[in-house]
């Protein structure tokens, strides 16, 4: 499957914090859930949640486990660029918003509405 980078985002109305999520992922690695410990995983805490990079299956296993913290309040999507890629880094691009920031900003604002709908569906 190859290497995959994933964004894990927390809905603004969730009680979970990015630090809690990071701790949970680190504990998953140390507990070796679904063989995660043996895989090379890069984790970065961000303002909206976390970025995870590793083998596609491992990353998906992490996302599945993390979702249990708040089933309808944690969202995820793949990301094209690897973590720390200088081509999209604000420091090396001399400032300005990160590519994709405005799209992420709009969709994060809509996540509470998505949660309401998912809660109704059950």
């Amino acid at each position, binding site marked *: 499957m190859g290497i995959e*980078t994933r964004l894990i985002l927390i809905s603004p109305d969730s009680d979970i914090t990015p630090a809690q999520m990071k701790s949970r992922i680190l504990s998953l690695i140390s507990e070796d859930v679904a063989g995660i410990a043996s895989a090379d995983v890069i984790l970065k805490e961000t303002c909206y949640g976390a970025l995870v990079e590793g083998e596609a299956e491992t990353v998906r296993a992490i996302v599945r486990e993390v979702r249990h913290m708040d089933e309808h309040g944690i*969202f995820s999507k793949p990301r*094209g660029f690897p973590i720390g890629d200088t081509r999209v880094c604000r420091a090396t691009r001399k400032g300005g918003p990160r590519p994709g920031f405005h*799209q992420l900003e*709009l*969709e994060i604002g809509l996540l509470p509405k*998505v949660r309401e*709908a998912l809660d*109704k*569906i059950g």
Partner: protein
Amino acid sequence: MKVLVYPPNSLILTDLVERGGHEAVALMREIGEHVRDAEIDAPPLNVTEEDLKRALRYVSVEEPAGLKGRIGLLVPLLEEAEASVILSDAPPTFGCMGCAVADEFFKFLIRKKGIPTLEVKYEGGDKLEEAVEAIMAFLARLSQEGKATKSEKKG
């Protein structure tokens, strides 16, 4: 089932498809392959010859270079897709659509392919719940049809 989402990099659509038990066919994976390709110097600014060859299967050579480049990048998603979810009239910040021509043309290509497609209109954040319910119902139907097809093949 492989479900194409459009806008192709939408967080909400990608997440809903994965929640529905399907594989989301999204632009990010295609970009990921391009940026990890050692032959490309400064992706995704460079369009490769392969991208243009793929685009020319669908677009006339007289079309603007921008359209060919965008369609060349999007076409692998279309070829892989077994179903699709389109959120039409979404604001530009909901997900990348390239340019207006590429947007219209790619939606036309999806409809022309004849795969099961759900088109939901974006009517603002307040009415998003209805769209989410429609998408989840569509994905559940796809799962049922997929199971039925598998059991038919076994039988």
